[in-house]
């Protein structure tokens, strides 16, 4: 007869402060993760074993090859589950986090009025060969994003959107011409790290001309985060789901 162990009630809430994170599949500490990958080997017993070993090399304990299928002649796709042996110590992770409080349109207006006494001028573009304007449009254009209207809609912003495929030189020239306070760069294409290169090149250009301090520089895009933007020499980075209001608030905090 199965004797039911009576544990002290642990409750259903997350318990005490923990810093060591392991993957959670079904129970705390089980380390379960899912992987999929393709190896250049036809399906078979050896391929299955190769996939297991491959998973094990990643620190996966007791890998289970759930699926093995030929996806091209001589290539097999594997779906594997297993117990990851790794743990991340959350305590050691410090990331710069943008912690701008979302300000109301009124507050934004009041502060810019008060501190600057003029409109805050921003110039934005999607640079290099990147033609994905939807992101920068969402931030700058009247229409905005997800119901939040863009900077163009604020009385206290003067927003120039140069659109897609803008050369860094062009962007800088325009920023100087309109006496911009901030420059907003969007980078969507990330293949071969083109977003990093394009963005870094712009900062490099500013540095060369001794203009880095003249502008607040923002970088945005689906693969951008604040940390990366700082690394590339920008003042702040904005990723997926950014709303125009977030950008307005940040600029006010910085400039007004």
């Amino acid at each position, binding site marked *: 007869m199965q004797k039911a162990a009576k544990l002290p009630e642990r409750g*259903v809430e997350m318990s005490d402060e923990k810093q060591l994170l392991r993957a*959670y*599949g079904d*129970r*705390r500490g089980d380390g379960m993760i899912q992987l999929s990958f393709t190896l250049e080997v036809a399906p078979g017993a050896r391929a299955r074993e190769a996939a297991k070993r491959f998973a094990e090399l990643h620190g996966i304990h007791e890998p289970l090859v*759930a699926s093995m299928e030929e996806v091209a002649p001589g290539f097999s796709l594997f779906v594997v589950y297993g117990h990851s042996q790794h743990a991340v110590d959350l305590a050691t992770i410090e990331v710069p986090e943008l912690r701008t409080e979302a300000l109301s349109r009124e507050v934004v207006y009041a502060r810019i009025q008060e501190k600057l006494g003029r409109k805050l001028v921003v110039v934005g573009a999607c640079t290099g060969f990147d033609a994905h304007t939807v992101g920068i449009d969402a931030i700058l254009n009247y229409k905005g994003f997800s119901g939040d209207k863009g900077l163009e809609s604020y009385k206290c912003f003067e927003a120039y959107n140069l659109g897609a495929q803008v050369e860094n030189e062009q962007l800088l020239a325009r920023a100087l011409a309109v006496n911009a306070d901030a420059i907003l760069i969007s980078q969507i294409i990330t293949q071969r790290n083109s977003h990093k290169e394009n963005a870094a090149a712009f900062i490099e250009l500013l540095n060369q001309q001794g203009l880095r301090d003249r502008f607040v520089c923002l970088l945005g895009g689906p693969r951008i985060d604040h940390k990366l933007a700082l690394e590339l020499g920008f003042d702040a980075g904005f990723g997926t789901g950014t709303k125009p209001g977030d950008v307005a608030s940040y600029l006010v905090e910085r400039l007004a």
Partner: protein
Amino acid sequence: MATVPVDEGKVRACRELAANIARDVQGYINQHTSVGVERTILRAYGAEGADAEGAPLVNLAVDRYKDAGLLDRGILYFVGRALLGGSRSVQEAAEALAYGDLDTGEGGPSLEEIREALRQPTIDALARIDGARDQRDALRASFPEAPAPHKYVIVATGNIWDDALQAKAAAYGGADIVAVIRATAQSLLDYVPDGATTEGFGGTFATQENFKIIRKATNEAAKEYGRYIQQTNYSSGLCMAEIAWMAAVEGLDMLLNDAMYGILFRDINPCRNFVDQYVARRIIGRAGIIINTGEDNYLTTADAVEKAHTVLASQFINEAFAHNAGVSDEKLGLGHAYEINPSIENSFLFELSQAQLIRQIFPQHPIKWMPPTKFKTGDIFQSHVHDAMFNLVGVMTNQSIELLGMFSEAIHNPMLMDRFLSLKATKYVFNTAKDFGDEIEFKKDGIVAKRAVQVLDEALELLQTVEKETIWGAIARGDFADVKRLRDGGKGYKGVVARHPEYLNPLLSLLEGDAKGGEAAGTGG
């Protein structure tokens, strides 16, 4: 709503045949009891707890009288005598039966005196069921009704505390119903483990304490998310009736409960199973619990194209058994499933047809729609798409309860992320195709319509045969699920006992009210 052609005359004929089939069995049921039934009754009167080895008191008491050949009178006969003999409570009485001197039942108080001793305990027993029902229904009524199909997900960590955490996570993800899957081994255990449990593979033991823990978690979640979360478990296996009672008093909303599943899939003895299901359903009916029948399982062992009609035929039979036990249509969640080989051309149309047919034939019933499982493979991506098509049929045909498919079905019990992603995908399909079923009509004489006609015709034919050969014969022949079982084979047969002419079970009598199961004469009073 797009409809398939349904010949109401044939449906009526099916219902009549099914009623005859169940009536035949009801005669047997009314003359028998079982260790499971008697333990249930003893629990219902208040006996609880287990010994140091974990053996429940109700098992010890009932087994003792069973082994002594005395159980035919009903355990309450001896409880009554013990109460008259000095036990101050049913608990004390049960302990006396378990550990005291064996009462051979001879001499002593009259049957009338015994009945009288049981009068208040019987009232209390019934009140406990009613009270739990009212409490649950009151809480439930305080939330808005969720739109159908209700999203039903499974939790199965083996550890009740992890289950509770994941039940709340499921609610967070949008589940309407949370089931805690039972440990693989449980349905063949002839006792219900006691207390909270943290070990069990393939699932978590169904125990009264575990029910409480999940009820607490889902009620907390309901308050947190403003949606009532239904709780379900399994009233199935050798402890079908006991679990029904535990679920009733712990306020569960739903139970997997079938007139034949145990016979076919757990090799439980048919006699034992029929006797137990009757009492389980009497309690379930009283408690206002929705049952989910298990015809979906047939399609895991039999072919879903060829044997679709066996599902429908069995649903009529399950319905008849449930009616005999006082379960109303509104609580009868007949099970069916999306189990056609996905490589078959137009299989989606066949699934759609069956789902719509069942919907129309059982319009009041909270029918339960089960996801693809058998043809799932370890390709979790493909599996997710397979489930999406299933979800689409669910919302198109307005299924009542939909158990969500999991992309990891062929691999493991659902993990936290699997369940979340399944809920997410289901919500998407339900929302994006919300009124699709209302937007279309099926072509006359098209694939969908013809298939529906064919399935009903075949079900009618099968029911005609079953009526002739009786359910015992049909089961022996492998009519359902391609599984053959003999009347005296299987597990738990020894636990069946023919009732004494003076068999005593006032709670059951109360539950039966005037309308005893079927029309056969019984001796349950």
